[in-house]
């Protein structure tokens, strides 16, 4: 077991973890404002197909800039689809769980429709921004060998953690999620803040989707996120609505998933493969049991999560 072996494994872990982390950061902000959006999977797929389509269509004209514009397109598309959800739950006061599920299904369908013409096409991978002698180095790649989206995800975990806990705007957002009526009575625009949080979550889900269609496998295939949006949703709960734990939890999932592949490829078939596949979920149950045994002290679940805000009623 050489150093190179661990570096290679770590690179795989990062690739597996990043999209889940991106989507979960966005959802964390949404839920902190008191809204639960279960449509992450659908928004990711819309982001994946739009990111791919933009990069594919404008790639020849934009050159090196193409993937950046593609990711921007994915973020905008994700945000736009989330605002549709926002309009239904905030302005019309519909049920958040039902509307979120509808968004997930809508996203699967819409992305398949948009993507029908792009099946079988490929784009350049949105790879490392560093020069080859750094990104391709057997040791250097552990730091420099990733897509810009990987660094972006890591930075944003800290930015979001800082924003929520250390800034006034973050405090207001949390206040809206904890007690919407109080926040409203002292003059904060509850609906406006929630719209902004939902759009932020949608944009991040869109970027997470683009990570699939532009980094892991630079192509479009129907439902290519294969359920990662649901894992991201679970991760937010798992983290107790804390950014730091979100990062740890995402990498915990990533390490377990990679470990499964290594164990199988190395001939550890003394455990059935279904057991390996179930490992992350078994561990999640264990961790959640431990957290709840310690009481709710560790969890920062917003008090108004999922409750519609209708001040006139």
């Amino acid at each position, binding site marked *: 077991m050489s150093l190179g072996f661990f570096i290679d494994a770590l690179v795989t872990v990062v690739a597996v973890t990043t999209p889940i982390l991106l989507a979960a950061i966005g959802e964390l902000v949404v839920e902190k404002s008191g809204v639960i959006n279960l449509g992450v999977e659908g928004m990711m797929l819309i982001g994946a197909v739009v990111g791919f389509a933009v990069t594919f269509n404008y790639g020849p004209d934009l050159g090196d800039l193409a993937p950046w514009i593609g990711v921007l397109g994915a973020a905008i598309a994700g945000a736009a689809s989330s605002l549709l959800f926002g309009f239904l739950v905030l302005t019309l006061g519909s049920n958040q769980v039902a509307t979120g599920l509808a968004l997930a299904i809508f996203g699967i369908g819409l992305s398949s429709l948009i993507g029908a013409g792009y099946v079988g096409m490929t784009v350049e991978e949105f790879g490392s921004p560093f020069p080859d002698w750094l990104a391709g180095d057997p040791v250097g790649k552990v730091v420099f060998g990733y897509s810009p989206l990987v660094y972006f995800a890591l930075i944003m975990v800290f930015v979001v953690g800082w924003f929520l806990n250390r800034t006034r705007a973050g405090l207001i957002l949390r206040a809206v999620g904890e007690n919407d009526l109080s926040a409203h009575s002292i003059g904060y625009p509850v609906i406006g803040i929630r719209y902004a949080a939902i759009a932020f979550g949608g944009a991040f889900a869109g970027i997470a989707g683009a990570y699939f269609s532009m980094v892991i496998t630079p192509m479009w295939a129907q439902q290519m996120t294969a359920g990662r949006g649901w894992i991201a949703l679970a991760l937010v709960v798992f983290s107790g609505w804390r950014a730091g734990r979100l990062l740890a939890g995402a990498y915990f999932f990533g390490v377990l998933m990679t470990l499964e592949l*290594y164990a199988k490829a190395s001939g550890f078939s003394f455990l059935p493969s279904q057991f390996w596949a179930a490992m992350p979920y078994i561990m999640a149950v264990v961790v959640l049991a431990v957290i709840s045994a310690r009481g709710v002290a560790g969890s920062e679940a917003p008090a108004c999560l999922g409750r519609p805000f209708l001040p006139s009623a």
Partner: protein
Amino acid sequence: MTLTRRNFVKSAAAGLTLPALCRNAFAAEPLKVGFVYLGAIGDYGWTWSHEKGRKELVEALKGQVVANYVENVKEDASAIPIMKDLAQQGNKLIFTTSYGYMDQTLEAAKQFPDVKWEHCTGYKRADNVGTYNSRFYQGRAVTGTIAGMMSKTSTIGYVGSFKIPEVVMGVNAFTLAAQAVNPKITTKLVMIDTWFDPAKEAAAAETLANLGCDVIAQHVDSPAVLQVCEKRKIYGFGYGADMSRFAPKAHLTASLDLWGPYYISRAKAVLDGRWKPDDTWWGFKEGILAMAPYSKAVPENVRAAADKIIAGTKDGSYEVFTGPISDQSGKERVAKGEQMKDADMLVMDWYVKGVQS
């Protein structure tokens, strides 16, 4: 006859039935054939190859056959009304092209006994339901030969889906053929417990490359494994269709599913009134399996060896599952010189020696 409402309805009904009767009376009316597809016709994989077969059928029997299809049909109860619809629209021969349509096909067939049904890769038959399959493993013997000759590390990888006979046969044929040209070959096998999850397929391929595999085969639905091979500068194979567009340098060749000849023969059988609910298992010889062109990376001697496997399979002088074959624990499964029977192959649930899983 006075024109009462009742009489009007009667005569109108007679008028409507008359052309219908005439239609049945004339044999020149083309045979309507229906296809039920799992994916989208543009998936460059499983469904795409069946769609190509449908087009060949229409082309070959122009004027005698009309063929329709329904794509993106889920492998659950929702498939039954779609199959019944096809039967109601007058399709007399219906192909259901995925393993997961097995019980649905039988259910629909029970309600439309005069329609002839054919289920792909299944094993349940009825008076009006036949099954058909391809000897996919024959293509694996060709890619295995190429992998065995081109691997420098003598370690080759395999990304599989589930431990079902169809997949196990492929893994074993691939490994046996590679060992025939390089006895030191080890196949590292990763089953990802799903048919389709590009991110997991890619992570599995990355893992195999990290563990020293320099040629990786795949039995999953997306070209993700090939894209990883391209990035890691190692080799891989397409499956079901030519996937070189996804990995121009890494793609060595692919086994191609050509369902056309089968569909044509079955439609002819219906037209001639010879159709029976058969269990068909064809391969290279019958023309429903072929290899894509070899890439530039495949040297001359490797091409020759691969071509020899294809030719031998066609004339019957080569059969990859010929003894002696032992399993992972070293127990002999097929005696020296003996050929495995089809019935044993179809329930294969053990890996040959040299497979690491």
